[in-house]
């Protein structure tokens, strides 16, 4: 999952970026409104965390612009002004949730995860499909009641496919959402991850959760529980 953080305070920005990276996100960040607005419209993102009080373009204006540009990913607003009027204004403009400063790391991650699940159409806290139950917060995967050990990147691929279950995800989309602009990308690595995922999740090729669509990409094919 790829997250965009727009926050003008460098210390707080660094912290939020670190929280998210440690939790398995590919994170882009901007320190002012103008750069943030550009990234929000142009970069692939699964979720954005936007501070409302920004120099340059305001947080509200960024949200308005990115919604106008047709970007649909969920937006969490960070605000120090905990007035309801500003919360309502932010949510009306197109944000999906708000978090009042100062906040706990756990709270931030929980809210972001909840937004991601909701945007993928998942109502429950855990993603359950076929014999698999994936907890995106605790980073655990259970198949038929038995835990499955995955590496961090394998988990990211699984999370992305499962969140968008039923949708064809191209290799380039996967690459875009697993790595930031600065990281080295190799789409061949994706094939390796998919192969390993299949062998770990379904060693006996019994469920075949991930289908390869030739020339288009991959699709999670088990029904959501």
């Amino acid at each position, binding site marked *: 999952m790829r997250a965009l953080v727009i926050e003008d305070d460098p*210390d707080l920005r660094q912290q939020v970026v670190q*929280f998210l990276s440690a939790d398995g996100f590919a994170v882009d960040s901007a320190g002012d409104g103008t750069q943030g607005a550009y990234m929000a419209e142009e970069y692939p993102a699964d979720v954005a965390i936007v501070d409302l009080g920004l120099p340059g373009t305001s947080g509200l204006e960024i949200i308005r612009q990115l919604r106008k540009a047709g970007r649909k990913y969920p937006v969490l607003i960070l605000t*120090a*002004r905990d*007035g*309801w009027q500003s919360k309502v204004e932010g949510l009306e403009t197109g944000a999906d949730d708000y978090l009042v400063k100062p906040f706990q790391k756990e709270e931030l991650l929980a809210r972001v995860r909840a937004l991601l699940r909701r945007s993928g159409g998942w109502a429950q806290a855990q993603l359950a499909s076929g014999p698999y139950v994936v907890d995106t917060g605790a980073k655990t995967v259970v198949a038929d009641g038995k835990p499955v050990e995955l590496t961090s990147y394998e988990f990211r691929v699984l999370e992305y496919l499962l969140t968008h279950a039923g949708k064809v995800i191209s290799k380039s989309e996967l690459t875009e959402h697993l790595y930031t602009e600065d990281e080295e990308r190799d789409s061949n690595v994706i094939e390796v991850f998919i192969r390993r995922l299949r062998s770990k999740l379904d060693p006996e090729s019994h469920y075949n959760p991930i289908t390869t669509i030739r020339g288009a990409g991959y699709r999670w094919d088990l029904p959501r529980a």
Partner: protein
Amino acid sequence: MGAVGGNSEGASSGPAPRFSIPMNSLRARLLLGTALLLIAFVSLGGLALEWAFRNSLDHAQQDKLEGLVYSLLGAAATLENGELSIALEAVPDPRLRQPLSGLDAALFNEAGEAVWSSAAFLRLGSLQQPGVGEWRFERLREPDVFSLSFGLRWVDVNPEVTRRYTVTVLEDASAYERQLTVFRRTLWGWLIATLIALMVTLLLLLRWGLAPLRRLGQELKKIEDGEQPQIEGRYPAELQPLTRDLNAMIVAERSQQTRYRNALGDLAHTLKTPLAVLRGLTGESGLPDLARQQLGEQVGRMQHIVDHQLRRAAAAGSRTLTEPVALRPLADKLIAALVKVYATQIRRFDNRIPEALKLRVDQGDLYELLGNLLDNASKYGGGQVRLSAEQRPGACALIVEDNGPGFPEDAERLLQRGVRADLRKPGQGLGLAAVEELVHAYEGRLYLERSSLGGARVVAVLPQR
């Protein structure tokens, strides 16, 4: 300000007893004062005129009777017996020759005996005889006549013999009375007509003169009702400083709250971002456990103190010129926002606020009050939230209910003053503490009850004028 508005019509407001209300009105004062003055002036003028007229009428009567006495004396002649007599044929006024004509004359000798009289001289009691050469004019009551007597000494051919006589002329007073009555009727009729015309003119003048004050009162009422932002009409020079200052005051009162809030918001922003960084540090693995725990606790305390003081300072409370805010659209906005945030939890959101309901509460305060109550109900309730309003005498009650677990037994105690709000634990009714501050700022009451939905029921009663 309210006083001006209330007084121009005099009856609507104010706790004063009813009989004293008109004296509180400028128009009533001016009207009463000038009316009393006019009535006094007209009455005195009328009395003076009547007195002068009666005086001149009396003089005319006397003059007329004097003329008659002279003409009678001109017709007098001595008889053979030496007594004086008057030949009726020679009398100038023909009425003396007719009985019951209202005019009579007689001649008395020294002993008071009538030696001559006209056609039907009334038998009168003894008339006082004036001295020789003197006139005596009087009004008799029974019968109502004027009488004029003149004393004389008659010198005949023989100068040694002189006799003393009194000539008396009586005239009926009814003609005089008629004249006087007609005059009085005309005089007072005209005076009263003039008085009424003057009063009407005065009333119109006052209405016209005081119209700007009445208009000002109406404008202030409109401002209170939120129909216009400030005083807009043109006013006479005497009132302009007042309207200018009133406008300045209204603008100041409105902008002060905004400025205050913005300043507090800035303060919050600058304080909370570093607090957020500190809070983030408590998750850092490099710190010793003790330091991390201490850091977490202290940051938590700072956060609560900041929150608490900000809330207290930001509550606007009731003000004189608060515009009424329509509750329904505001609640709809909040509900739309909360439904978005708690999309997976909320199943039913029931907004029963009537469309027409308006509250005299600052809009920002109303957002905080409802926002916190609805947020709690959405977060801790069981997915069903109901918002309603009840009109009570002199107040409006806002009611938020849910189907969650409801309040613990000691919830009311949490709300008591003296339990320091800044020491409360987060999640334990922090939003409720904010609501309580607000309700207190409006001198209202907050009740925590159990709802028919099964969960909590919070009733915020806000007094309304």
